[in-house]
């Protein structure tokens, strides 16, 4: 075993360092000093984000390994470590830093909820458990072997169940937790059965060796279907989506935000990586499966979203349909598809976190979370309403905002592969989506309400988070360098 490889695990190692520091702080910190837990956690995760943003190539140059540096990005970018167990590739670092940024934004928003009387004693646990799931996602993304992938997947989903059930004394939270953990184990059981059949038919678990042994035999197709069904549960694609609205509604709002953005983004990326790398020989089968799941996901979710009154439920269905759009990037299976997938996750993260930031604040201040409660919000809280409007416009895909460009790129990636009908149906669905997103905007800006939610000022951290999200939504679409940079690393990936 070559211990020098540990240097290349800079994302994982720095995250583990952050976790250990916070863990010790949580145990040994005095009651008074623990009041600064959130700023410290945000600071450490911020440093971690900066470290991950530093491109893999630069790190390699510092520590010096000529063999890796010679592989310029764009030619053969995946570099196997630990005899293929772990894959080092620039695009993986990019998606990891995107996920870490999202986690940082959620930490900024979570303060109000965690300072409440009932949760304040368990405040440290929230940050630790969240970071552990992030670590799991890192392993899931970088895995070069089904064993590491499975461990990452579980590390990314079991702790989330404890987060969903975090509000111990609120029955809805516990109910959501039970629904989440049972479906999550069931889903991983399905995946595992698929993986076991893949092992039986190919004799290996390494991603690099499997493609040579995948011949398209019926048993392998069945194995793939089981595996896909398991991941589709995590991604909440229709018809595996029934748990999503319940869990999103019952979970604490910050956890809902985490589930809808970070977990989903990581699972989507890992799914595409595995479909292309491992099941490249079954491309016809998985494209056919994805074709119908995508259509069902976008359409069914949109139709259900139309009749929701509770905003968290509404955003659950909205996030299901967004996952369908992400699948448009996956189905193309090309470098362009990969670029648009990563870009979509980035933009979707900022938009959805901005919306959830507003929901978190308002739920905490007034305890209200249905669309009718937002009537006349603009007259009392103009700035919050504008942030919410920007976020909803971006989710719906209205031009000046980043959401338009991300949708445009996934459509372009699918059209490039000849999926005209799929894109056509997706386009029709954007119109439906526009209707229900605008319903919230109408409630805030046009509907009159005598008893609108009173105006208030939120704390500095939350405001910082919302400003960052709004800036992301406004700038990401305009700055073409972001898309260009991602594309640069995903060619030949």
């Amino acid at each position, binding site marked *: 075993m070559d211990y020098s490889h540990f240097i290349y695990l800079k994302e994982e190692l720095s995250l583990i360092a952050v976790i250990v520091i916070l863990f010790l702080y949580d145990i040994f910190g005095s009651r008074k000093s623990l009041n600064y837990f959130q700023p410290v956690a945000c600071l450490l995760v911020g440093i971690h984000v900066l470290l991950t943003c530093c491109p893999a190539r630069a790190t390699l140059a510092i520590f010096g390994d000529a063999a890796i540096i010679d592989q310029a990005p764009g030619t053969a970018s995946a570099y196997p470590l630990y005899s293929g167990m772990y894959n080092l590739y620039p695009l993986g670092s990019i998606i990891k830093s995107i996920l870490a940024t999202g986690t940082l934004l959620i930490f900024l928003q979570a303060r109000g909820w965690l300072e409440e009387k009932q949760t304040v004693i368990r405040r440290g646990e929230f940050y630790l458990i969240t970071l552990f799931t992030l670590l799991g996602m890192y392993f899931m993304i970088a895995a070069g072997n089904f064993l590491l992938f499975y461990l990452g997947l579980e590390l990314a989903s079991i702790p989330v169940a404890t987060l969903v059930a975090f509000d111990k004394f609120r029955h809805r939270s516990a109910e959501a937790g039970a629904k989440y953990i049972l479906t999550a184990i069931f889903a991983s059981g399905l995946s*595992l059965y698929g993986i*076991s059949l893949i092992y039986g038919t190919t004799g290996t678990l390494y991603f690099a060796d499997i493609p040579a042994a995948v011949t398209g035999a019926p048993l392998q197709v069945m194995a793939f279907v089981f595996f896909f069904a398991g991941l589709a549960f995590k991604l909440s694609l229709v018809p595996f989506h029934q748990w999503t609205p319940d869990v999103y509604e019952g979970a604490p709002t910050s956890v809902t935000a985490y589930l809808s953005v970070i977990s989903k983004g990581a699972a989507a990326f890992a799914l595409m990586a595995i479909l292309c790398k491992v099941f490249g020989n079954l491309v016809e089968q998985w494209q056919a499966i994805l074709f119908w799941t995508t259509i069902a996901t976008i359409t069914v979710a949109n139709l259900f979203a139309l009749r929701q009154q509770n905003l968290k439920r509404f955003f659950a269905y909205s996030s299901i349909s967004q996952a369908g759009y992400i699948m448009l990037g996956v189905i193309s299976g090309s470098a362009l598809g990969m670029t648009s997938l990563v870009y979509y996750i980035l933009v979707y993260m900022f938009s959805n976190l901005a919306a959830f930031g507003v929901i978190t604040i308002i739920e905490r201040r007034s305890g209200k979370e249905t669309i009718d409660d937002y009537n006349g919000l603009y007259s009392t809280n103009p700035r919050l309403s504008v942030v919410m409007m920007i976020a909803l416009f971006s989710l719906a895909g209205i031009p000046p905002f980043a959401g338009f460009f991300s949708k445009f790129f996934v459509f372009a990636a699918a059209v490039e592969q000849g999926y005209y009908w799929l894109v056509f149906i997706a386009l029709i669905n954007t119109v439906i989506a526009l209707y229900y997103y605008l319903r919230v905007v109408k409630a805030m800006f046009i509907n009159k309400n005598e008893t609108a939610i009173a105006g208030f000022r939120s704390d500095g951290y939350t405001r910082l988070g919302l400003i960052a999200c709004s800036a992301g939504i406004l700038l990401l679409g305009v700055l073409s360098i972001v898309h260009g940079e991602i594309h640069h690393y995903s060619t030949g990936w």
Partner: protein
Amino acid sequence: MEGLHLEYYLVASAVMFFAGVYGFLTRRNLLTILISIELILNSVDINFALFNRFLFPGQLEGFFFTLFAIGVSACETAVAIAIIINIYRNIRNIQVKNLDQLKD
């Protein structure tokens, strides 16, 4: 090993798997649902050990996967039971029909 072919074991594990899926879909008590899921996970363990023993006897990948899968499923069960106990404390009941606060 005479007379005991791979297929016999595979059929047994497949039966376990689908019994688990059936149980997951039809049971009305959180604990029995959890037991059904355990059936699924154990059938997977059998599969891995089996393939390794019969088809690829030279290596250990399948056995290792089984060990990890057993460990992880223990964690899953622990978390699930903790949450179920929490539900019991809240409503003194773990029947699925009483988990009806969240629905369309």
